[in-house]
């Protein structure tokens, strides 16, 4: 079942500024990446999905609930991690998450138990009894994530969760997001303006630009193997390429050390082997070339 369905969703402010324009897409269960530059309309889309901002035209449903009429029901079953800082410095992580758990309708005992569980899962240990004011950015992000999970939602909306994190913190956060999707059984919609990091954790990707949908596709399709081989040699890549072309294999040197080879069948591998042996150059690497998500943008911008 689709967790989120967008039907020709349009949002304009005062008839002048268009934040979203005719967006239609279906997001499956699992982890979905919502990619777009700053100002592409990601945060507006999240506000609409939470039922907090009405759409100008078109509609959307979240977990089968209509955003226009069932906002409170949606917010009861969805967790939201805002992009901006939103934590009171004088409360401890435990106090805040327990309180917000109750604000989602959990009885006191359940809120306490779930808070302890979730803070452990996001790796906040002894610090959880200290005021949030003294936390690092990474710890704050994890508290924000914990409050989005405390009521065991069916879907979490994470707005730029890796913002402001150092590379190690970024990796930890992405691993955590992958775990939420795979082990916790909670669907995730995660926004980012960085393609590469979403490629790692998402099964589905939606790209929006200027409020318009550029692409909605499964990451498996997007990053599927291509019919090409990437070959790295010690040097003299040009000569290797020429050698291959001479025996009828499509090949092109990309740099002095690497070449791009057209893969026809298994014989192609033999030709490459023969070529490097004949020329006596060392072979460093041979692999199937993959599409990268960045190609999504490239394809759109320079249609082939």
């Amino acid at each position: 079942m689709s967790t989120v369905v967008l039907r020709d969703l349009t949002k304009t402010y005062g008839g002048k500024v268009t934040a979203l324009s005719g967006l239609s897409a279906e997001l499956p269960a699992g982890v979905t990446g919502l990619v777009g530059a700053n100002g592409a309309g990601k945060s507006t889309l999240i506000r609409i999905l939470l039922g907090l901002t009405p759409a100008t035209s078109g509609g959307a449903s979240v977990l089968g609930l209509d955003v226009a009429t069932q906002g409170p029901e949606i917010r009861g079953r969805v967790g939201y991690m805002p992009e901006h800082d939103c934590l009171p410095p004088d409360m401890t992580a435990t106090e805040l998450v327990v309180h917000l758990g109750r604000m989602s309708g959990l009885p006191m005992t359940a809120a306490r138990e779930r808070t302890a569980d979730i803070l452990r899962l996001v790796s906040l240990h002894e610090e959880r009894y200290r005021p949030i004011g003294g936390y690092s950015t990474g710890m704050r992000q994890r508290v924000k994530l914990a409050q989005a999970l405390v009521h065991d939602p069916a879907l979490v909306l994470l707005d730029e969760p890796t913002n402001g994190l150092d590379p190690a913190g970024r990796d930890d956060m992405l691993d955590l997001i992958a775990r939420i999707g795979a082990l916790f059984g909670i669907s995730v919609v995660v926004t980012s303006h960085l393609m590469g990091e979403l490629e790692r954790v998402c099964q589905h990707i939606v790209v929006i630009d200027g409020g318009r949908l550029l692409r909605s596709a499964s990451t498996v399709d997007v990053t599927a193997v291509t019919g090409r081989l990437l070959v790295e040699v010690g040097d003299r890549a040009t000569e290797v390429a020429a050698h291959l072309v001479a025996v009828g294999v499509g090949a092109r040197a990309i740099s002095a050390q690497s070449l791009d080879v057209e893969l026809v069948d298994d014989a192609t591998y033999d030709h490459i082997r023969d070529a490097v042996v004949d020329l006596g150059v060392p072979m460093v690497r041979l692999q199937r070339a993959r599409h990268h998500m960045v190609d999504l943008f490239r394809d759109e911008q320079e249609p082939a």
Partner: protein
Amino acid sequence: MTSGADTGAIHDIGYRKYDGPRLGSAYVFRALTLNSLRGTFGLGRSARSKVMPMLLLAILTVPALLIAGIAVIGGAEKLPVDYTAYAINLQVLVSVFVAAQAPQLVSRDLRHRVVGLYFSRPMSHGDYVRAKLLAMTGAILVLTGLPLLVLYVGALLGKMSIGSNTQGFLRGLAGAVVLSAVLAAISVTMSAFTTRRGLGVAAIVTVLLVLSGVSGTVSAIAEQQGNSSLAGWAGLLSPYSLVYVVEAKVLGADANGASMPPGAIGGVVFCLAAVAIVAGAYALLMLRYRRVSV
């Protein structure tokens, strides 16, 4: 769920689903109101934040204890102070409490954008505003009502007239409810528009004390010039004198020679003013919170 087959160790990294009850908006409203009310006395917060409200509660209650004690031991016929006048006489302390607690009740959530975490949950803006107003009203009611209770118990122990004391106590309590609602409306609204907490504290204490001063001064000058009806109307300028007039005119409390607005019209106008303050504050707060982005 366990993993760690590859490391040979058993790590419980499992996630437990929640199948228990999810309570509705009435529970959430009650939880937020009580949590906020407790917070105004520093309960559930740091030790430091308990000092000020608890000290003020003690300072407001001790005179009542002394009065009650002396009355009991001395075998007085009647308490030396009116139930309805008690909080008004100690209004500076009440103002300090209100100014210190209203900003922490609402400004903090706005300043640190915690409101976004509330409004991305099922709770409506209206429930949030009503919970905060109710919590502040309750807090001021505890502060001003506890001394009245002490006086009442003292009076009963001193074997004073049960009828007149019960009547006076209930009248005082009704007055305290009106005073609490008016002060909460003013202070919560001011706090919601000043997201810097220090600024909110200063603004509220200034407004309450200055208004009280202006009202008293205008009233005294008018009285001196023999214009007693203007002296009475001046009571509209301060929430404390406003409530005092309502107590005297509507609840039948002893005015103790204070200036009063003329006739039944005066009572009606003062009552309407109290209602207008609360209703206006509620409307302003609703507007304010609708503009809050998540």
